[in-house]
């Protein structure tokens, strides 16, 4: 009897250890939210800096106590938007090729290439951008430097390719073959079948991929930091303007900032965090409505 009791107790204890491990994800998420918000909201709560001038300011000069991030928000949004505009069509069509048109061998090769692209660390995209894209932009740019919104858009467009390709490809492959057969039996050509039946049927999966791509673009730091220019002020006015996305603002100055300056870097993180959370909820909704159908 004693032995059985002990065995049972052991099972219970270990089960609870498992439970604890499962909770770590939730705890981490809460802790991250708490720490970032706690530090980031502090300057506004203690009134050491005005939230309004933080959110609407267009200059970031820690030396003269000016911390405006509006131009960074604009930069982040523009860069992300541009990257989506270029990257998403290319990615979806690549996914179409892999899922619908490539033979099994070609499909495998391209899929491997896409996985490899996903595995390349973002810093190397940045190095590539700095070594190739920035000099090219400089050639056509009226400005004195190649680091610009345009260079950032190109680097980000490349970086979201693997995310959007692989998720789109998965959802295209999940479209039942009955739809394709039905379409062919009605005398539709392959291309018509793809564009009129398969793509619409995979819509929600592709949307998820696009939104995750947006998340990746807006959260990208290191690659962008090398090609965006990081000006201390100014809303971008052209494709050749330098930009300073929210992410790079944090990474650039966190190392040496202190006091209000440091807290306002956390505040920058809070703004970024809010963007990401909106994206997360959007993904969650799309996935849910898909299940609902």
């Amino acid at each position, binding site marked *: 009897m004693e032995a059985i009791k002990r065995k049972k107790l052991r099972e219970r204890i270990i089960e609870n250890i498992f439970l604890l491990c499962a909770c770590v994800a939730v705890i981490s998420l809460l802790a991250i939210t708490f720490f970032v918000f706690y530090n980031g909201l502090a300057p506004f709560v203690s009134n050491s800096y005005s939230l309004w001038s933080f959110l609407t300011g267009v200059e970031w000069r820690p030396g003269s106590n000016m911390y405006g991030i509006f131009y960074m928000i604009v930069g982040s949004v523009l860069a992300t938007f541009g990257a989506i505009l270029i990257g998403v069509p290319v990615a979806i069509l690549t996914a179409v090729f892999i899922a619908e048109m490539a033979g099994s061998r070609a499909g495998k090769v391209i899929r491997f290439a896409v996985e490899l692209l996903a595995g390349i660390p973002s810093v190397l995209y940045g190095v590539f951008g700095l070594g190739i894209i920035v000099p090219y932009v400089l050639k056509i740019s009226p400005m004195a430097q190649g680091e610009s919104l345009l260079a950032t858009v190109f680097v980000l467009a490349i970086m979201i390719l693997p995310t959007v390709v692989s998720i789109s490809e998965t959802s295209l492959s999940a479209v039942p073959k*009955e739809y394709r057969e039905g379409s062919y039996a*009605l005398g539709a050509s392959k291309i018509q079948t793809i564009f009129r*039946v398969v793509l619409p049927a995979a819509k929600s999966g592709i949307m998820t991929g696009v939104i995750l791509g947006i998340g990746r673009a807006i959260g990208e730091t290191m690659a962008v930091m090398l090609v965006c220019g990081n000006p201390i002020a100014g809303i971008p006015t052209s494709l050749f303007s330098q930009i300073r996305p929210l992410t790079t603002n944090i990474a650039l100055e966190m190392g040496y900032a202190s006091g209000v300056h440091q807290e306002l870097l956390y505040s920058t993180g809070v703004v970024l965090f809010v963007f990401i959370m909106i994206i997360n909820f959007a993904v969650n909704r799309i996935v849910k409505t898909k299940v609902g159908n």
Partner: protein
Amino acid sequence: MDKKIKFNTKNLDLFYGDFQALKSINLEICEKEVTAFIGPSGCGKSTFLRCLNRMNDLIESVRIEGEILFDGQDINGDIDVINLRTRVGMVFQKPNPFPMSIYENIAYGPKCQGLKDKTQLDKLVKESLIKAALWEEVKDRLNKSALGLSGGQQQRLCIARTIAMQPEVILMDEPTSALDPIATAKIEDLMSKLKKDYTIIIVTHSMQQAGRISDKTAFFLMGEVVEYGETPVIFTNPADKRTEDYITGRFG
């Protein structure tokens, strides 16, 4: 026989890789009749059906030898497959409406052919639905998703969709096997109405169904046509012992 021959196959062999699924099929299928293919699972009847509008093209490892003459033209030769499929429509085992509205489902085929005129499309959709005996049930919700229909309605929608292409032949691959008896009865009813305008070829698991609706029946076994003839003859007085065994339920 005074009826025109629509399909004529000559020594048709079909291989999946190394496996021979069809062995030397010779069949003549007449116009404006219902022809039924019966036989146990895996006997090749569906495979044969899919040869008639080249749906087997979608499977990579398939190799076909022999001739299939459609109105005297070999469809395995250098023909326009898309054109063939507009003339030879197909209804599948599982109802497979597209995830679009009822209207869009029916307008899909004509639109793919380049028909854009709205009034013409409206007319075509209505006519097809009426012919498929579905109009009364769906006329108020043409813009609702087709996936909201019942299984039987979905299948009739698929038939309507096929009719909208104004085909000459309609292939049906066990069209009622996923449906309940009432829905099945409606579809059988529909078939007997449609046969005055269309040549219908149906694969079925149910011998009763074949007996009820078909004019001619072919019995398939192990990739061969064992017997082919007028349905009443096949069912009452089969020439081959194996046909008799199958029909009387001794195997299959």
